[in-house]
Structures are given as structure tokens and as C-alpha cells.
């Protein structure tokens, strides 16, 4: 089982690598858009998340769950629930 926090930390980690923003400065309540994600980097990060957890996501998932908190919660409650 994964907790929202573990997943959230992974997301923060890949966003930090992508944007150069220090991981401590990234807040769960921030939107991907605020953190500099666009429709191109989104498809790359989506692939990283898919590979990390062996799940299938759609390109719209980042937009449907636009903050780190919402996205992590979505993964934990639906994609990683079993």
C-alpha cells in the first residue's frame, strides 16, 4: 500500500528534477501549472509516474487533478487502491 505522502514525495521529487526548484520549497497545494509544467513536460512526467507505479494514466490526469495533493490522492484512492 502506498500513502498519499509517499506518492506526493515522489511527485515532488520528479518536479524538482524537472524544474530545478528545491524539493523543500514545493508545496502539495501547488498546481502543476504553477510549478512550470506544460503539455509537453506533462507527458514525460506522466510516463515517469506510470513506470514508477506500473499503472496506466491518461494525458488528462494532470489537468483533472491539478495539484500535487489532488493528484497523489487520486493515485492512492483509485490507481493504487489494491
Amino acid at each position, binding site marked *: 500500500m502506498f500513502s498519499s505522502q509517499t506518492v506526493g514525495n515522489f511527485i515532488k521529487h520528479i518536479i524538482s528534477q524537472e524544474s530545478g526548484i528545491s524539493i523543500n520549497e514545493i508545496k502539495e497545494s501547488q498546481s502543476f501549472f504553477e510549478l512550470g509544467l506544460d503539455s509537453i513536460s506533462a*507527458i*514525460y512526467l506522466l510516463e515517469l509516474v506510470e513506470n514508477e507505479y506500473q499503472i496506466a494514466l*491518461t494525458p488528462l490526469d494532470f*489537468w*483533472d487533478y491539478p495539484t500535487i495533493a489532488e493528484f497523489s490522492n487520486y493515485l492512492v484512492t483509485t490507481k493504487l487502491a489494491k
Partner: protein
Amino acid sequence: MNLWNPLTPRYKVDPYPLYDQLRNESPIYKAQTGEWIVTGYNEVKTILINKNFGSGNRKLWIERSVDYLQNKNIDISHVKDAINTFVLQLDPPSHTRIRKFMVENWSKAGVEDIINDNINGVLSKIQENTVDLVQEYTSLLPTRNIVRILGITTTDYDELHRLCQEMIKALDLYVSLRELVTLDKSSKAFIDFFKFRIEQNNFEQGLARTYINENEKLNEPLTNEELTSLLIFLFVAAEETSVSFMSLSLYHIIQNGLIDEFRDSYTINHKLEELLRYDSPVQLLGRIALKDEIIGGVKINKGETTTLSIGGANRDPAQFKNPNTINLTRNPKHLSFGQGIHYCLGDWLAKLTASRAIPAFLNNFKSISINSEPANWYDNLAIRGFNNLKVTVKS
């Protein structure tokens, strides 16, 4: 709540309830992605003919993706090369130059004979009883037609058809990284297929040879890379949309008991127009605002993208009475081939093919019935269609 959820599996089979929901909320709906989803007929048409909306954003997006992924050591540069002269994704003045060249040198002579020949060839191989209408009929015709129209010396139709099915992803709205990588492979295969043939002018009598010869006479000829992309575009554009047009049409005809209405090639054109409205192969087109514009009372800022729902526009009740019903006497002004400067330049080929292939199939059997519902719908928001339709036929 976000109304824009086109990737929900049920909408792949039937997207029209989604378009209705969006249109009821607003014919120009701001999606969570930032793009405007346009489902009203007037609004879609207005944007298509408005010079302040460009078509180059998709190409730009691919080019930026290539650069971005290069930094991650992922090479998808063949995609960029394959689509560089896709006329659909060019803005004037390059659009004007390429389109003029394509249209002026494309003769319709002999095309109908090619189509009829291929129909007879494919039809003669169909056995009685259970037939997969797509796999054994509609999906075989456009490849064979375009190969002969272009004058390509090959009989590897299956491989070309497979490549087209992958290439059409280049026109889809959302793609995953994995799909981009697949797209790169098919782009490379297509480029390799045409490159040598173009360099050597290794074609039989046909459109490709005409293009190569006429190009040499131009003051500013297209490069071989541009010609390659142009031929890939013609090939891909003529392929999946035509397969889809014939498959969707035959399905609706059989399903709705309309077989007798479509037996005569020479009287079905306006009826096919209604089927094009009812279920359009092309579902989405993209445009970007080149200036601030107000469309249907909504301000669209320069740089914002609009996703135009052709399927939504074609079922807009403000434009078409009882839009969810097939009415063969309607003769509708649908938007299935687009509108404005990008109006489909192969519309005549699609209609000619369908108007010969559909009656030929229907007249070949004494009875035809649907065996099971269409299956394996395309994984593509921009092009609608399915890969399998089992029908039972009796002679």
C-alpha cells in the same frame, strides 16, 4: 466539475452525449487544460473561416516536443520530418504555396477506374457467411487506391495500412510518450519508404511522378524532404478517414434498414452527405488564436487554442432539426470536411470511393445483417472509426 472528459471509455464508442453536455453548458467551453472546446455549429464554422485563427499550433507542439525530449535522450525527430509539409498544419503563406501545388497538379482522370478495379478485386475474395466488413473490405480499398493513384510499385498493402494507422496519431489531440515513440518509428518507416523512390523518381505513371516532374519546373522547388512529407500526408489523409467513412456509413445503413436507399451509385451523393453529418470520421480540428477575437460573445485571447468539435457542430440542434436522427432528404451543410482555407482537398476522392464501394458491397449479396456491434474503436479523439464489424452475408 470538469465536463471535458473525452478519454472516458464510453465516449470512444459514442462521444455525442459528451458534445451535447458541453454545448448545453456553453458552445465555447473553457476546459481544465486551458483550451476552448467548441461544440456549436456557428462557432466552429466562424473559427474555421476566420483568418485570425491559425492551424500551425500542432506542428509547433511536435517540434517543441522533439527538442524537449532530445534533452531527455529520447529521439522522436522523425515525426518532425514526416509532418513538416502536412498542409493541414501549415499557415499561409507556406500553406498557400503547398496547397496550390498539390491541387493544381492532381488530375482526377482515371481515378474512378482505379477505384472500381480495386472494389471488384477485393469483393471477389469475400466468402459467404460471416464477414468482417472492415478487415475484409473497407480497410483494404483506400490503400490500394492511393498506391495506384500515386503510382507506387508495391503490393505490401498491409504494412502501409498499418503505418497509416500509427501515423494518424500525429493528428490526435492528446498523445502519450509511448505513442510518440511509436509515431517516430512509423514516421521513419514512411520516410525510408518514400525517400529513395523520390530521389530516383522511381514511380509508375501517376501522381507522385507528376509532382516530382512539376516540382522541378518551379522557381522555388520543394526539397526532397518536403516532397516526402507531402506524399506521406496524402497517403495518411486518404487512408484512415476513408476507411472510417465507409465503415461508419455501411454500419448505419445496415443497422437502420436503409440498404435499398444506397444501391445506386449515381443517386446516393446527397444521402452520403447526411451520413457524413450524422457520424463524421474527422471529429476534432485544432486552431490557435493569432489575435484576440470574440466568438459567440466569448473572448478568446491571442495564443489560446481552440479544439473544434466537428461531431458536436454536426449535431447542433440550433442548426439541424432532430440532429440525432438520420434524415436522408436533409442534404445538410455539415462540417465534416472542414471549411475555409483548409477545406479537405481529397473530399472528392473520399466521396467517389464511398459512392462506388458502398453500393457494390450492398448489391453483391442477397441479404446482409449485423452480426455483432462494431469493435475495437480507434484510440484517437480526432479520427473516429472502428477496426471490426462482423456481418452475415448471403448470396
